């Protein structure tokens, strides 16, 4: 119970800190939505005065003249109540919830799946490598994945593009989430298109993320295998596979689980770059765009969402550890 309250306190505090940072940082810095908008308008040849722009922005719910503290309080309230307002950036006027709602499934589908996949795969490979200490896999795994875990996301993306998606008739598309001509529907053509467009970004995330998991899992595994209870399990004649997963693997996995949640922040950073390189219209791309166009409402909502996602994941992993590890259960 006490444990629960502590975690909840942490949750709320972190959220508040994130929201506060997110509110003040953009406002402390030069540049404003008016200028961003003004810049964009001049491309179409229109000359719009700053006053007029303020009028337009005010109509969309952004009033820069207001007292900062009032804005802050207003902001906190609307964030919590889910009134996230409308975009004042390049999607001027679109409700932030709609924008996010459109992008979210793509990010969840692409990034969510490939991140979890990377984690699961990495953990499995790491388990096997650690188990077969000194074997063929273990000989290859550490050096190879030290290298992949140090590769920049965007570089892997570029490499994949230049290998598979360059030329007049590329093997795989390197851009967008599905072919532009298609209308979203549950047709074979559409699904195939979505998959084709997802392969390269997903591969990028997999390649760069899986290494870290393999290495940590392998190392945890090696440490765990030296534990007496693994030797004991062998002494008891328990079959190898069962020891590998049930005894060594499970115990080596526990510290990884909390690591997974904590590293989600890193994963999200990779996402932004991957979505940017592949022009994948997900949350990461949207985040970049919102930043560049000073889109406060969108930026704030995205930041909140991302923080929330990480926090919820941390809580879930805490909970999982709680379930899997009886020691944690009694400690709480």
């Amino acid at each position, binding site marked *: 119970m006490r444990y629960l309250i502590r975690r909840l306190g942490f949750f709320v505090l972190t959220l508040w800190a994130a929201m506060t940072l997110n509110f003040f940082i953009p406002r402390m810095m030069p540049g404003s939505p008016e200028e961003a908008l003004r810049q964009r*308008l001049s491309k179409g040849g229109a000359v719009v005065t700053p006053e007029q722009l303020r009028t337009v922005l005010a109509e969309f719910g952004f009033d820069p003249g207001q007292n900062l503290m009032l804005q802050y309080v207003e902001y906190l309230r609307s964030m919590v109540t889910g009134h996230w307002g409308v975009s004042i950036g*390049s999607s*001027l006027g679109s409700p932030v919830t709609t924008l996010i709602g459109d992008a979210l499934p793509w990010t969840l589908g692409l990034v969510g799946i490939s991140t979890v996949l990377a984690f699961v795969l990495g953990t499995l490979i790491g388990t096997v490598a650690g188990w077969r200490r000194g074997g063929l896999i273990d000989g290859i795994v550490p050096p190879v994945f030290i290298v992949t875990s140090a590769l920049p996301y965007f570089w892997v993306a570029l490499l994949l593009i230049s290998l598979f998606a360059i030329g007049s008739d590329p093997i795989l598309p*390197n851009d967008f989430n599905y072919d532009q001509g298609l209308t979203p529907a549950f047709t074979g053509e559409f699904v195939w298109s979505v998959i084709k467009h997802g392969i390269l970004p997903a591969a990028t995330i997999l390649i760069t993320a899986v290494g870290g998991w393999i290495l940590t899992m392998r190392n945890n595994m090696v440490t765990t295998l030296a534990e007496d209870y693994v030797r004991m399990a062998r002494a008891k004649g328990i079959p190898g596979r069962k020891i590998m997963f049930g005894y060594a693997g499970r115990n080596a996995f526990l510290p990884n689980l909390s690591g997974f949640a904590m590293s989600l922040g890193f994963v999200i950073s990779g996402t932004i770059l991957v979505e940017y390189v592949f022009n994948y219209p997900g949350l990461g791309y949207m985040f970049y765009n919102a930043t560049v166009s000073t889109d406060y409402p969108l930026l704030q909502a995205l930041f909140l969402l991302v923080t929330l996602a990480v926090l919820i994941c941390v809580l879930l992993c805490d909970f999982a550890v709680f379930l899997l590890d009886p020691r944690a259960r009694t400690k709480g």
Partner: protein
Amino acid sequence: GCGGGDKPIGDAASSNPSSSAGKGGGGTGQYKKGGTVTIANVGGQTWPCQFNPFNPAVNQVALGFVYEPLTFVNVLKAGATTPMLATGFAWSPKKDSIVFTIRDGVKWSDGQPFTADDVVYTFTRMKEQPALDLYSLWTGAGLTSVTAAGNKVTLKFKAAAEPYFFNFANQVGIVPKHIWSTGEAASKPATWTNTKPIGTGPFTVESCSGNNISYVANGNYWQPGKPYVEKVQYPAYLDNNPANLDLASGKAQWGGQYIPNIDNFYKSKSPENNYWFPPTANVALVPNNDPSRPATSKLEVRQAIAYALDREQISKIGESGYQPAANQTGVVTPTFDKYFDKDALTAAGYDKPNLDKAKQLLQTAGYSESNPLKLNVITVTGYTDWDASLAVVKQQLAKVGIELTVQDLQQQSYNQKLYTGDYDLAYSSLSGGPTPYYELRQLLYSKNTAPIGKQANSNYSRYQNPEVDKLFDQYAAADEATQVKLIKQISSYMIKDVPIIPTTESVDWYQYNTKDLEGWPTQDDPYAQPAPYNIPDVGQVLTNLYSKSAQK
């Protein structure tokens, strides 16, 4: 047939919308219908699927396609007009009131008839909802009333308002009263999303997703037989590279893209790939004329820079020749040749670089080799061509002993500095208009400036000269010949005071593919600004395009 304009301003050469392709005839059913055009123009975002013509972020996909203006004004032909929803217009002698004759027989795409009431409603809403009045017609231009009488609509102004014609006749899309007077459209017109737009334009929105907007020909369109192409695809591009690739491969036929190494990357890929970059405004070194800046407020320094520049070289190396060299008069050529005073330019010696003169001027200003002039120029991060141009400028200025430091800034920081006057030199460009008046007024009119520290509207150089202001003031009510004279007079101040130092001319980035489609605007037939991001010009192009395969 469609009548011509009553009193076109400027060169009235073309007044019939369908004759603009220059292929003669009244245009009725001239071409068979069919074909699709795909536009490649990077928006940097997925489509929000809104078509509110008053929302400046989305009006590029609404105006010209679905919504039309009263009159089309062609920037490339010095403001030649083409009647659209108004068959004609007439100014009062003092040019403080204008009467539009509203076209008969036009139907909204939902079948309702279009009337003068719709026009009055559109302008009245802009008064009631200032957020809709993007061009400040009621507050800035001095519009006082909009009334209808039969098929005549009268706009009354406080003072002569001819310079605003471009805005209210050309840039305002007319919306249907029967839609916009109910529901959310009525209560929150500025933010209304308008996902299924009803307009008079050649196309209607068939479907829209984040990835693509698909337009189909409007069956009720008032220009008989038009549009010839049946479909327009407008995919969302988040980045230049895929858009450029699609253009090169012919997957998209109409581009508004900056393509590096275009001949190699685009043109060489197919003989049917074409481009044309018509100049419309100046790219310039903007010196800060404010006395608080010791160097750039000195005339000699500004002159020295102007003399030191070899604009042809800047154009060739910095802009790969895509953007032609500009001249010190500030009049964009060849687009506005009529207003260009070549003799004055030559007389002042600005027609070619003059390093000796520049050095001499610098000496007069008190600079020498031991005390070299050090200047800082701000530019925007990511504008590669500007960086290249400035690298050339830097080399050229170094030859006369000016040390130039280039400072790349994020867009926002750049704007902040530019608007508030926190710079020595800025590399900058502004948008033009149907005559040089529009750009020069932005650059030089004292009402467009502000004290250092306050945001200026457009006169960032802080140039203030009552005589120049007077010339601008006379322009509005003047007749055409006087207007030409006035602009030449104004450009003489450009030569004399060097408030701005134009380097190259900014252009419309425009690529077109002629494999299946014809009717494109070209250098020989510049019937509209050709890049797809120009509104409402995009409508002109779309009504002129036709598919070759459909003609068989």
